[in-house]
């Protein structure tokens, strides 16, 4: 076998490989004479490797989705939102009072940001109105978003059919609307909605386009407002049709809120300007608002935050992995020490028949590496299967990166070497005479 395979190298260098392959076969033979024991020993490594790969895959998937969502908000954007200030919340929770709350972003805010802060290129103001939208007798509870014509380009959203409204329609307060794809089958189950009219409040709007559906978990949902059904109308149209006071009726009372703008998206010229501009806007808003009736979301900051979270997650995972592999390694060491004691006689026999110390080291080291590598392989198989099952049955996104099974497997093999060295040397250090006398 060795003589034919290496004519150039000669038997001297071919020997170690042949020897190793025989040592591996011998190792398998010895381990298979204690199947259950070997299996139980291996389990520690299996679970360690498997949990690392599975958790990494799930974590990777989750963080990928989070980053996708943040990217959908636009990494060069700064988003300002109106928030009901906490003290007002308390008052309105009493429920009996009926008066008009006034809070949130205003048109002067918009004006100030545009005129005083350099680096701001585009502003996208937005009003959100909760309203039933009708097609004859079909009805959906819808969020009407009143905004500007450049909204889709700014928020990474696309019109799939038809078009978004134009500057002229905006300026002329035209009664046109763009429907979110989610509500189309509900309102128009049979025919195309383009060119048809829908009723929202007291007015009819002509459907001119359909927006692409948002992902399964949308940015809006992630930030806390579930907007399954969306409809877009020009901001000017909303101003003339709805005014600024929003009524919410409850049994026995009603409350009204005066909000000029619900959301403003600020686009900054370059990514390096995002944070300074965000700071400037924060400062500006702080000076002009007495109450904290707004929030400022910087997707870039969130992205960085998400990356940092992921790093922490990876460190935590790494420690868990290290601990579980350590425990697995100790298990292997334990069983190898027991095996060395149990096979003292065999070691004596082998030494008497010509085995050198290093032959004995090789024999026991090979066995512990087989154990840990087999555990590593099983763990990789299981660790790749579990994310697949999770994706299939829990509909969670998982990503098994190319390197995670490789690293996990190499570490498990390394564990076999590290924790096999001591028992192997202990076996080799035995005095052959003593070992032969051992019962």
């Amino acid at each position, binding site marked *: *076998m060795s003589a034919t395979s290496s004519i150039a190298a000669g038997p001297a260098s071919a*020997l170690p490989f*042949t020897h190793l392959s025989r040592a591996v076969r011998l190792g398998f033979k010895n381990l298979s004479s204690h199947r259950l024991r070997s299996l139980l020993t291996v389990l520690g490594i299996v679970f360690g490797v498997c949990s690392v790969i599975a958790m990494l895959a799930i974590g990777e998937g989750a963080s990928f989705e989070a980053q996708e969502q943040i990217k959908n908000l636009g990494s060069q954007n700064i988003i300002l939102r109106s928030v009901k200030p906490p003290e007002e919340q308390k008052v309105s929770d009493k429920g009996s009072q009926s008066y008009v709350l006034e809070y949130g972003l205003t048109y002067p805010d918009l004006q100030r940001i545009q005129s005083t802060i350099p680096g701001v290129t585009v502003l996208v103001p937005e009003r959100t109105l909760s309203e039933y939208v009708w097609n004859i007798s079909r009805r959906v509870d819808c969020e009407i978003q009143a905004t500007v014509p450049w909204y889709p380009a700014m928020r990474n959203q696309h019109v799939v059919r038809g078009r978004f409204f134009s500057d002229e329609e905006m300026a002329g307060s035209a009664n046109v609307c763009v429907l979110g794809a989610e509500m189309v089958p509900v309102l128009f189950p049979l025919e195309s909605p383009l060119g048809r009219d829908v009723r929202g409040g007291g007015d009819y709007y002509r459907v001119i386009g359909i927006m692409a559906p948002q992902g399964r978990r949308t940015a809006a949902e992630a930030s806390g407002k579930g907007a399954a059904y969306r409809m877009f109308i020009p901001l000017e149209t909303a101003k003339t049709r709805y005014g600024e006071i929003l009524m919410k009726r409850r049994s026995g009372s009603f409350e009204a809120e005066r909000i000029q703008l619900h959301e403003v998206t600020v686009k900054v010229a370059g990514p390096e300007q995002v944070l300074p501009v965000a700071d400037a806007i924060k400062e500006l808003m702080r000076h002009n608002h007495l109450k904290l009736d707004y929030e400022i979301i910087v997707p870039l900051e969130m992205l960085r935050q998400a990356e940092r979270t992921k790093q922490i997650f990876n460190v935590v995972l790494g420690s868990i992995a290290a601990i579980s592999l350590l425990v697995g390694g100790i298990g292997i060491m334990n069983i190898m020490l027991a095996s060395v004691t149990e096979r003292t006689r065999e070691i004596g026999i*082998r030494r008497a*028949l*010509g085995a*050198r110390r290093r032959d004995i080291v090789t024999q026991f080291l090979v066995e512990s590496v087989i154990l840990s590598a087999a555990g590593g392989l099983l763990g990789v198989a299981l660790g790749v299967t579990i994310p697949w099952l999770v994706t299939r049955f829990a509909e969670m996104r998982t990503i098994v990166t190319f390197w995670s099974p490789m690293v996990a497997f190499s570490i498990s093999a390394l564990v076999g070497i590290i924790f096999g060295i001591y028992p192997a040397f202990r076996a080799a250090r035995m005095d052959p*005479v003593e070992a032969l006398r051992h019962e």
Partner: protein
Amino acid sequence: MLTTPVSTPIVQFEAVSKTYQIGLVTVPVLREVSFAIHAGEYVSIMGPSGCGKSTLLNLLGCLDRPSTGRYCLGGEDVSQLDDDALSTTRGTRLGFVFQSYNLIQQLTVVENIEVPLYYQGLPEHESRARSCRLAERVGLGHRLEHKPFELSGGQQQRVAIARALVNDPLIILADEPTGNLDSTSGAEILGLFDELHQQGKTLILVTHDPTVSRHARRTIRLHDGQVESDVRH
């Protein structure tokens, strides 16, 4: 009187002593033992227990090194070799037969016979062929794939003898080879030794049983760590 002067002896002990250190006390076990054994001899080493038989056997078998003195095996001084060299010497020049057979339980008959060749790095097919031949020679050609626990004591000892022969050693060392056997199997084993002697193998047999030592052509008696008598018969 002891040696035929023409050939160099295979085993030569020159004033070999062995002492053990037990705590603070130094215990001499062998004291200035000298003898020579030539190729083809059949020697038995006898003596009461505690006389140093086992120590002598360990020294002869290169399992241990003498404290003082010189041991030449096949014309080469092995008394100062390091552990690796001693292992190689055991593997290439010596064959062992033990009282309790000392077969490796998880290996089959033929694999047990192969063990010394494994450590010499002999190609597998070659060592397998040689082991099969030897198994047949000791009458176990039909038991090649059996495990030791499936064999009788006599059969196990025959496997051990085949294993001792597989590396074509200079000497075969047997330590009470019939000690664990009934008289019939014991006689069989001794018959096998006689056969080997007739084929020119050098045999050294350690025993305390006079009927066993009668098979040998020469008896060295040890007493209290010294050679008491050395007789040919």
